[in-house]
């Protein structure tokens, strides 16, 4: 049992096996206290991880080795918006020109999540995939849907 993290299972689309996704408690609580909009969108990250469209491997960085880190991309129907005056979050339509990305490290910890503009040609991928990622590891198709 991992003590310093929240965890939840997902079915990994590449091999169909159940894997454990982790969120470090300090990351979780940091967003909870300081960044309620990002915290609310753990909902969106959860949904994307359970229903991804693209999975990329190897995050290219100039100065360090980020091989085996993953970027999971998805498009949800809704995402969360923080409402300041009520101090709560509501579901709003996810902008169609965006994709939602969840970045995982080698131990399946979520290290970052957020929305980016979609690629002009492949609207289910983020922009500049070729320069940012090592390769496309998995792609949703009608066969593996």
């Amino acid at each position, binding site marked *: 049992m991992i003590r310093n993290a929240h965890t939840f299972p997902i079915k990994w689309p590449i091999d169909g096996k159940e894997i454990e996704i982790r969120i470090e408690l300090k990351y979780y609580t940091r967003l909870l206290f300081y*960044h309620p909009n990002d915290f609310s969108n753990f909902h969106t990250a959860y949904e994307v991880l359970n229903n991804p469209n693209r999975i990329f491997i190897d995050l290219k960085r100039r100065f360090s080795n980020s091989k085996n880190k993953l970027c999971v991309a998805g498009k949800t129907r809704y995402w969360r918006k923080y409402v300041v005056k009520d101090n709560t979050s509501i579901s709003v339509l996810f902008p169609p020109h965006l994709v939602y990305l969840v970045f995982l490290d080698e131990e399946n910890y979520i*290290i970052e999540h957020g*929305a980016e503009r979609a690629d002009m040609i492949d609207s289910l991928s983020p922009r500049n995939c070729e320069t940012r990622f090592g390769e496309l590891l998995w792609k949703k198709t009608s066969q593996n849907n």
Partner: protein
Amino acid sequence: MEKDFTKQLDQDIAGSDFGSKQDDLQMWYNERGDCIQFKTMNVSAIRERIDECLTLYISIEDQKPIGFQLKDIKALANLLDVDIMVKADITSSDKSLISITALILFKAYTQIPESTDRRRTGYGEAFKTMAKKDLETSVI
């Protein structure tokens, strides 16, 4: 494993801790991601990648930058003067991170040779979001 993670999220959203410190702007060193993250507002935002090191957070509502993510901190910090590093712990989230971040931002900009208008303006926008933070900003 937590079978109902979303229930936990909803409980925490309804709880008293949710957003309770959002007015306390802080930089944060994300050790697992080896990146510094800084956001000045809790609004829906788009990540805009400027280069391999810098990503800006852009507000969807008014298209203005509200913060940034700076990556490869360990490598960039190693390129800086060793004397600087011993004065600040880059794994902390306290206010001393401001000075280190400014230096690392500058180092990242100078270390990557590509020169484009968006790189120049992107790094400028990142520095400007830091200026919103009402803290000591003296460079070590």
